[in-house]
């Protein structure tokens, strides 16, 4: 049995890479303005080439993120693979049961660790949190970027709300990135120091059994069925 199991297609990995680069740039260029009065804010602005270059970088990364989002929306709407992936990312009732059982297991109230399918509640929380964050950041960011245009439709307070929303959501993005995503894929003992599947797309059998047992099972079933079919031919 081959130890390497393909987990992420090339398209998935490209999307993740684009998302990673654009969000990192947005975080750096955004927070350097939010904390521009602090020393490290000033250092970041200096590295970005000055205050105006910082703004240009933020907008440029926003365009990259927007393009990535459009690419992703096309991927999940029109490609067979994307539709399948999106379907397995949709939250279901069983996710709540999994979360409950996981907590019970962690608290030693349950003997068995729940087995997960292709995407567990962990990946789903990650995906949907960022789905909502990007939507909020996009809307509030557009209002601020094109304020001259929006002055014709929106009251003054809408700009203040956008500003507060953009800053508040940015903090949540950081929290989810560091305490959820970084933990789940890097620092957690299951993946330490990093789960490199984001790069080459492959995971080990051991890792699959530990983290996505149900998917592993169905993969085995599928391959056995295929094998059987092949024998009949």
């Amino acid at each position: 049995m081959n130890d390497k199991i393909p987990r992420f297609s090339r398209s998935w990995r490209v999307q993740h890479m684009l998302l990673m680069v654009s969000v990192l740039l947005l975080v750096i260029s955004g927070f350097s303005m939010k904390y521009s009065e602090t020393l490290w804010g000033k250092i970041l602005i200096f590295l970005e080439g000055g205050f105006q270059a910082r703004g240009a970088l933020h907008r440029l990364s926003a365009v990259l993120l927007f393009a990535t989002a459009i690419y992703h929306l096309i991927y999940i709407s029109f490609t067979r693979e994307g539709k399948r992936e999106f379907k397995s990312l949709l939250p279901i009732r069983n996710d709540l049961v999994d979360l409950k059982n996981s907590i019970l297991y962690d608290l030693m109230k349950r003997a068995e660790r729940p087995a997960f399918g292709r995407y567990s509640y962990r990946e789903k929380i990650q995906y949907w949190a960022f789905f909502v964050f990007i939507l909020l950041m996009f809307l509030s960011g557009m209002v601020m970027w094109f304020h001259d245009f929006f002055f014709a439709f929106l009251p003054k307070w809408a700009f203040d709300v956008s500003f507060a929303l953009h800053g508040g959501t940015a903090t949540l993005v950081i929290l989810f990135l560091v305490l959820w995503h970084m933990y789940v894929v890097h620092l957690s003992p299951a993946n330490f120091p990093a789960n490199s599947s984001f790069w080459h797309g492959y995971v080990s059998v051991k890792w699959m059994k530990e983290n996505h047992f149900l998917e592993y099972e169905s993969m085995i079933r599928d391959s056995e069925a295929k094998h059987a079919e092949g024998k009949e031919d």
Partner: protein
Amino acid sequence: MTALLTILLAFLQIGSSPQNTRCFLCHGKKDFGVMEDGKFQSLYVSPKQFSASIHGKFTCVQCHTDVKVIPHFIRPQKVSCLQCHFEGNTVGAPVKWMPEKYKDSIHAKALAEGNPNAPDCETCHTTHYVKSPSDSTSQTNRRNIPDLCGRCHIKQFESYSKSIHYKALENGMLGAAVCTDCHQEHDVLPPSDPRSALSAEGVVRTCAKCHADTLLMARADVPVQQPEAYSESFHGIALENGMVKAANCTSCHGHHDILPASDPNSPINPKNLPKTCGKCHPHADKNVAKGKVHIIPSERSAGIVFYVYTFFKWFTLAVLVFLFAHIALDLSGFIRRKHARHE
């Protein structure tokens, strides 16, 4: 005969410095003066006003040092204030930084360039009747500053006299801003000079000197949060980072003729806001008046922004707790699995 008498008089005065009463024998007469270029120039000095001035206890010749005998037949040199007002003087003349600061000013520059209207010390402080600015009869007293500057700066005074600052001053509110509060006293510089208190970067700090002063603003019944709120706003952040085209206080409030928003002539009156914002934002219309200006999100007065801010504050805190709890639980599960493997 006259010459002989003069020599005799001079001889008698050797060793003693002439008393002011001797000077006032001539200079104390109201019609005393000389004809110069066909014009009468008064040389009168009011003994009463001089003795009431801050220099009243000095003798005339302490400043007019080139007058040794009275009567003097030569024209005395122009007196320089720096004769006494220099650092390290022995007569106890206050120096501080004023004369030095004056040297940098646009006034001193104009004077050096030969502008006959440029003011030097005596233009503002008077020649013979210098009084402390704290003396309410001094023309450098806060109450009298606008009139003093307005003597030359007529247009600016006219504009300023319409402002809420001047109205407050007239009503006895001595803390109200007068010319020198914004333009500085001795080192008056044009706003285009980066050292000026009224440069694009400087103007916010200049207004904040008073408008962030809680006590002063409470007395004037003016909200005090504006400078802080401004510095957290888009305009404030941009300006702080060197984008001088960003709106500063004066961009919206005007300068000499500052009026409260309630005044229909004020550029920040809700009716005039579209025009005021429209100076920079071409599509601004009456929408810009819908909402509050100078808001601090953490304060209830910020309205809807306060609720957005408060939601994010508590939600972020809850998320933080959830994320940390998740890590703690996951680690405990991992330790349990590790133990199970060892057993």
